[in-house]
């Protein structure tokens, strides 16, 4: 215990001076890690259960199989009665002082105990929050750096593809140019061939029309008036028969 006290005061001095103070070989001044190789057990969250503030619960549990629930209370009452009646404990001014002091302490703890506990818990939580916040901000900062670094690496990788991309571009432009010109040539040739085709069609049509006209004019010339009359009277007779037939069906 005292070696730790001395070590504390030694730590307050500069390291060079502290090393000059050789207190005992077992005192280690600069701890880099936990001192014991065994894993340290967790401390309990809450203290042991007590009844009425000072008497541990284990006392009541110990007496329960022997005396039941009222056992410890009867024991306490009997003890107090014995002390008072046999005058082992005498009521004097200190008793009144005790009643006042202990009553005040009990009142104080009951009224303000929670607030003090909450304050202490808030202090603890603040320490944890500060360290967690420092840790989280450091992690975020480093993560941002990592992401930036990865992006830079991706950018550098892109450099490999730039030349082939440029080559592809140029090839595409050349290809499109060639196709354009081929189309142009094709269209021109087609236009010329279409002209010749149209010309042939026109000749044919003109020849056909001329031939028809010549045939018609020759046929009209060969028709005599006698033939004309005969054909007209034939037509009138056919019409009359047709009219009769149609009248009959109606």
């Amino acid at each position: 215990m005292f070696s730790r006290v001395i070590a504390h005061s030694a730590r307050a001095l500069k390291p060079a001076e502290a090393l000059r103070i050789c207190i005992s070989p077992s005192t280690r001044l600069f701890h880099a890690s936990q001192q014991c190789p065994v894993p340290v057990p967790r401390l309990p969250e809450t203290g042991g259960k007590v009844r009425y503030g000072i008497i541990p619960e284990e006392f009541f549990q110990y007496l329960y199989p022997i005396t039941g629930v009222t056992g410890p209370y009867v024991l306490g009452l009997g003890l107090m009665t014995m002390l008072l009646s046999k005058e082992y404990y005498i009521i004097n001014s200190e008793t009144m002082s005790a009643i006042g002091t202990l009553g005040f302490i009990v009142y104080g703890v009951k009224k303000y105990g929670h607030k003090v506990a909450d304050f202490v818990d808030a202090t603890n939580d603040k320490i944890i929050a500060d360290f967690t916040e420092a840790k989280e901000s450091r992690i975020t900062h480093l993560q941002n750096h990592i992401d930036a670094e990865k992006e830079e690496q991706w950018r550098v990788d892109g450099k490999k593809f730039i030349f082939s991309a440029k080559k592809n571009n140029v090839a595409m432009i050349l290809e499109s140019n060639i196709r354009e010109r081929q189309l142009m040539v094709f269209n021109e040739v087609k236009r010329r061939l279409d002209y010749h085709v149209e010309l042939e069609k026109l000749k044919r049509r003109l020849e056909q029309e001329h031939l028809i006209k010549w045939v018609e004019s020759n046929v009209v010339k060969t028709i005599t008036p006698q033939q004309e009359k005969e054909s007209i009277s034939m037509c009138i007779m056919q019409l009359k028969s047709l009219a009769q037939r149609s009248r009959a069906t109606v």
Partner: protein
Amino acid sequence: MMMSLFNTFESPYFLGFPLMIFIAILISLTMFIPDNNLLIKNQSSMLASTFLKTMTKEIFSPIKKSGHSWALLLMTTLMFIFLNNITGLLPYTFTVTSQLSLNMAMAIPLWLGTIIMGATSQPSHSLAHLLPEGTPMTLAPFLIVIESISIIIRPLALGVRLTANITAGHLLIHLVSLALINLTKSLPLLFLTFSVFILLLILELAVSFIQAYVFVMLVSLYLEENLI
């Protein structure tokens, strides 16, 4: 029955062996001092640790950095005096800080330490404190004598202040408890006296802390005078 009011202030002996040392050590070193340096402690240790940190900052912020190595000594003294004063308020306990022997044993070495430190490292500077700035030269001899006497009186004042305050407070509590035990016949007077007792108790709680704080603060002031 109490034979006299000052029975409780007798230094306890058991078969000729003085018990004061044991009481002084056991009470203050087993109560409410955080015995670990964990970051997050249980509630009791955390409370004591927060209290100690606040007190250290309060007392040592006006002191130069070279005086901060006295922090452990003075804060230990503070906790020692405070806890011993507090335990003296409980019934049937003996307050070690009501003994002049203990208080002088704390005050004289602390004061003498500061004096020796100042005298050996910077004698002219510490002697310069004997004559405040801007005093007319005619008053100088008287003032130096008065200042020297005041320096010599300091440990006595430290010890006696603590003893007197604690003794007086505890004596008052004994007197009021005597009144309480004798006034059980009439209820209104009993209630009145009981309220006086409670108020006195609150005052004594405050005085316990204040006296410890004043003791340590005065030593820190004497230290500040004599620092490099």
